[in-house]
Structure formats: C-alpha cells, structure tokens
C-alpha cells in the first residue's frame, strides 16, 4: 500500500512545535541556534531539540533540523560536533544545502535521513540523480517547477520529493539572491535575509515605484494532484509564524489531506477550507508555478503588501470539564454579542455567540480589550489546551 503523504510544518520554538503537531502535522522542521537560514528566529537549543524529538516521537511523528546555510570557512569548525549533538537527540533528518555535509552525515549517522534544501533550487532529473548518488534521501524541489515537471522528477528518480505548498515565496531562485548582502550587508545565504525583494525602488523615467514582491503560495487546490503524482511530503513555509497561523494552516491542510484519503474532498469542503486559510493570510495568494509560468498577476506593484489580521481572539490555556469553563488568554479585541468559533487540535469547531464572559476572578465583563488578559467563557465541549478562539468564518 502506498504511504500516505506527509504534512510538514515549520516551528520556530517548542510551543509552536507542540501546537503544530497537535493540529495535525506529521513532521516538523526546526532550526538550531546555528547553521539555519532563519538566524534571527528564536530557534532551538540542543536541550530543546531533544525535547522536541521526544515529544514528536511519542506521537509517532518526526522532527527535521535545518542545517541549510551556505557555509563560509569560519562556519566549518564545529559543525561536525554540532551534527553529533543533534543526532544524539534523535533527530530524524537534516535538511542541508551545502553538499560537503551530506557524506559526513551518511557515513556517521546512517539512520538519519538527509534532505536537500530548496536553497539548491534543484529543478531537474539529472540534478536530483547527482544528489542521490551522494546519498540524499529526499529533495525539496525548486519552487519554480510545474506539476508536470514535478511528476517527471518523481517518475525518473528514486528520491523522495518534497514540495512547498503554502506561505511566502522568494522572488528569485533560492540561493541565487544576494540582494540582502549588497543592500543591507546581511547574508541571505546564511540566514540573514532582510527581504529586500519587498522593498520599493525608484525606477528610471517612471513615476511609480518598482516593486518585485510576490504574492504568497497557496496550493490547497492542488493537494489531490500532488498526492496523485507521488509527492512524499507537503511543506508549509514559516518558521517565524505565529501559533494561530500554524494551527489554522496546518489544521486546514490536515483536513484537506484526510478528506482526500477518505474520498470526501468535495468542492464545497475545499472552498470552506480555503476560506479559513484566507483568514490567516496577510497577503494575497497564488499557486504560482504549479499551474503556469508565474506572471504579472503573481506579484505586487504597490508599496503596501501586508494586511493586519485581528481574527485570532484567544488561546485556550485550560478547560474545567466539571464547570464547563474555558480559560483563555486574549489576543485581539472581542465583546459580548460577537459571533465566534472555538477550534480544537483534533479539528472540532464550536460556533457560538458570546452571551457572557468573565475575567480571571469570574466577574462578568462585556469587553475583552487587553492582550494577554485572562478571559473565561462558558462552553460545553471536548475542549483542550491549545484550542483557539477566532471570529466566525462566514
């Protein structure tokens, strides 16, 4: 029987890792304190990597560590010791970019997989086969490939293929962009990318600003096709994303994937999941290269691209099953009379209108206006820690 496709989530810290696994990710990729392309995320210490692996393995899930900087000489010393420490934590795979590490890992830690990062912009069968000979177990293909090209790679190589399905896109080929180095002195290939592709430039003889930022990727409509052609893993971008974002995006893709395997993926169901996904999006989205050569509709041409989002109302920190009281930490303004829904890691959704709410001392209040304020609601359900309250999706 064919293995079910993997849903792979980012996680910037331990709490996010736990949440995203609870919400349905099959595996999580994380960065350590060094050698990762998100040098300015919180990232994981060795102790945290160990805890992450233990937590995931108890759920029969996996943890991958990004080791995907393009090394400079000064980065070489210490990397082997670091790999040893991480391997001893029980990591399931290293995601690498610089090929000199591949052989070292394969020779010394044969039970740990090595995945080739998208930083290499691997775009063809021959290139995949080169890395297979070097011992790569999985390739994260370039984001510039169409469904058809992805299928050709799968049909003509024996390497697992991982595809990005959701999140921010690079404007340039991954690994072929050093705008950040030249404009801000921050090394894009060592985790310092300052996202210069989202800057607005003046352009000769034109009144309007020149921008090159892309819309975000959303491949929710292509999950069936990606499963059908034999992709091994579906990857969501965003190690610096919030708990709410991860819970929502991973939760949606979990449902889409499960519905596909259960033969229940109807157009109506997909449309609803897309609607939910759109509520956490802070940019417009596109399927980019999956369906056609990216064109002018896949980019932005005005300075402002980010939309703020106040959908996330609160994070559940406990539930009193006897009294049926939900305790949550406020994240955005809400009040009595609002139509909301509480969603849980197992996928249940409780839609209701807030008729009453209380502060930490169980005094009745009508408005929750302070972030981090403890709020209590009465609600009967199968509610657990890390459930979340949001505005109702209509």
């Amino acid at each position, binding site marked *: 029987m064919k293995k079910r496709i993997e849903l792979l989530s980012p996680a910037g810290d331990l709490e996010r890792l736990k949440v995203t696994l609870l919400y349905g990710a099959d595996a999580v990729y994380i960065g350590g304190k060094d050698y990762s392309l998100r*040098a*300015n995320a919180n990232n994981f210490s060795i102790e945290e990597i160990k805890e992450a692996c233990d937590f995931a393995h108890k759920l029969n899930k996996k943890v991958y560590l990004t080791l995907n900087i*393009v*090394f*400079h*000489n*000064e*980065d*070489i010393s210490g990397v082997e010791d670091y790999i040893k420490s991480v391997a001893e934590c029980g990591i399931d795979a290293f995601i690498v970019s*610089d*090929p*000199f590490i591949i052989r070292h890992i394969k020779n010394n830690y044969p039970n740990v997989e090595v995945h080739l990062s998208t930083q*290499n*912009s*691997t*775009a*063809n*069968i*021959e*290139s995949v*086969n*080169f*890395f297979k000979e070097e011992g790569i177990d999985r390739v994260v293909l370039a984001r*510039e*490939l169409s469904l058809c*090209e992805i299928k*050709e790679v799968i049909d003509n190589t024996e390497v697992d293929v991982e595809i990005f399905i959701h999140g921010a896109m690079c*404007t*340039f*080929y991954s*690994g*072929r*962009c*050093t*705008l950040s*180095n*030249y*404009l801000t*002195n*921050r*090394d894009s*290939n*060592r*985790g*310092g990318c300052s996202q210069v592709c989202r800057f607005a*430039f*003046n*352009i*000769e003889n034109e009144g309007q600003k*020149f921008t*090159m930022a*892309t819309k975000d990727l959303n491949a929710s409509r292509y999950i069936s096709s990606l499963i059908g052609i034999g992709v091994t893993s579906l990857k969501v971008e965003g190690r610096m994303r919030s708990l709410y974002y991860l819970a929502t995006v991973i939760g949606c893709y979990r449902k889409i994937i499960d519905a596909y395997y259960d033969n229940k993926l109807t157009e109506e169901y997909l449309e609803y999941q897309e609607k939910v996904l759109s509520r956490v999006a802070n940019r417009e989205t596109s399927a980019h*290269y999956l369906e056609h*050569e*990216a*064109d*002018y509709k*896949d*980019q932005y*041409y005005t300075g402002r691209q980010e939309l703020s989002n106040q959908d996330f109302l609160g994070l559940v920190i406990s539930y009193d099953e006897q009294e049926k009281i939900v305790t949550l930490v406020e994240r955005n303004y809400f009040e009595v009379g609002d139509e909301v829904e509480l969603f849980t890691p197992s996928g249940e959704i409780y839609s209701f209108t807030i008729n009453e709410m209380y502060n930490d001392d169980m005094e009745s209040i009508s408005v929750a206006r302070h972030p981090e304020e403890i709020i209590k609601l009465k609600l009967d359900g199968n509610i657990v820690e890390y459930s979340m309250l949001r505005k109702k999706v209509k």
Partner: protein
Amino acid sequence: MKIVVVPNDIKDLDKYVSSGAEGFILGLKDYSVNYFGITIEEIKNIVEKYKDLDIFISINKTIFNKELKELEEKLIELDSIPIKGVLFYDLGVLSIYKKHNFSYSLGWHQTHMVTNYNTCNFYYDNGVEYGVLASEITKDEMIEIKRNTNMKLFSFIIGHPIMAHSKRRLLTNYYRSQNKEYDGSLKSIYERDKEYLISDNSDGTCIYEGDIISGIDYLGELKDSLIEYGIIHGFNIEDNLIVKLVSLTKEIITNNSNTAINEIKLLICNNTSFFDKKTIFKVKKDEKKN
C-alpha cells in the same frame, strides 16, 4: 594569475588580447545568464583563432527537464572543441558530465555559493577542477580557500557583479501592470539613491550592482596566494574602458604597479564591495528594531 575577460560581444576580442587578456569566459546561447551567449560554431571559431588562450564556457542557467536533452547534446558538441572548461551552475551539468568521458574540465560556478574550501574539495573530489569564487566573500576568505583546496580558482576582480536571478520577468510584469510594454533594455533602479541595474529576458530577470566593483587593491595578495584567474567582467562597461582596465590590471599583476592601481581608481569608482567587508547574518535585538 591570468586575466580572463567576459566580453559583451565577440567582435573586439583582439583588442582585449592585445591589452593583456589571457583567456575568455564566453556564454553559450540559451544556457548562460549574465554572459554574452554565442553559438557552438562561434565558440569553435574563437577557440581556433585564440589557440594559446584559456577559453571557458559558462553554462550557468538553472536547467529544467525539457532542456536536459539539448543540454547533453551541447555538452557533447563542446567536447569536439579544445576549450579549457565548462563553468556550470546546475548540478545537472555535472551529472551529465560524469556519464561521458569529456576531454574538457569542469568549473563550479554556483555564483553565490563558492564560499568555503570544504565544498570546493567536495566538488574537486567529484572531478571538478575549477571554481569561480563568490563575489560576496572577503579577500581573506578567498585566500583561505585557496590554501585549503587543490581546486584552481577564479576571483571576480572588476565588473558589475550579479546580485540576484529570478525566473520571473520582473520588468515585463511591472510594465504590463501599467499597460505598457517593456522595451527590453537595461534599466536602473534606485534604493536610497544607490543605483542598481536590472534586465529581463526569456531566462528571467537579473539584478546587478550599479557600481563597477574593484578588487584592484587586493590583486597583489590574491596573486600571491596563487589564485589562478582574475575576472574582468565586461557587462555594461564601455569597450574602450574594458581595454584600459585589462591593460592596467595586467600591469599590476606583472609589475605590482602602484601607478596602474591609481589609474584604475580614477577610471572607476573605488567600491571594494565585499573584498574588505564581512556580511553579518545574526542581527542583535536593538538592530532588529531599526
């Protein structure tokens, strides 16, 4: 150290040779990004004419499946020409190379990734004889790489380095968004009044440093470290200026001429780019806020 020139055209190669060029890096039509692309036939003629020069062919575009068959044919055709080597970006080239017993050498030319000696050695062990050092590392890093690898190395000494390459047609898209048509020319874009160059064609978009960067102050040290080739990239540089730069650079390599160094500084701005400036990648919290 030999000077190799990346020409903008092939009609004036004689002038470069007369002024001291000892080799060329040429683009192959449809397979080269930021190199002037020519046909196999033209390559053949040039190699025939300049028998004593080191001629390299840059095949540095990202390759897609549909291009593999033709790429293999081109690589086979090149084997009938006594070129010194093919400089590649895509590992597909190396994979195809390994299937054949080509007589030419290979050079690792992953533009921004040739940044450490371990990876140079990895490719050297895979049969890759040459490497084109990234323009985003310091002179000291270049020298350290040379000390720790047997790979023969190129260093980009003068020119507009490419900063980024996209499959997207960013200028075409920009003008289309305004119901205009992109005229195909090189454009200038500005950020805080600093100029950068951008062009777009069927291979996508390239963005270049607006200044001509200069490693001329460090040429002596790079030469003494036994780095084999210094590149003068002619992109967007007027032909007579290239000739002068080649001639003066040759003078520096041969005679350590300070006069020539000063003359070059008068001809081009003295932007030493990353030769003497390290990039950072971990930003302190207080810097992050700014």
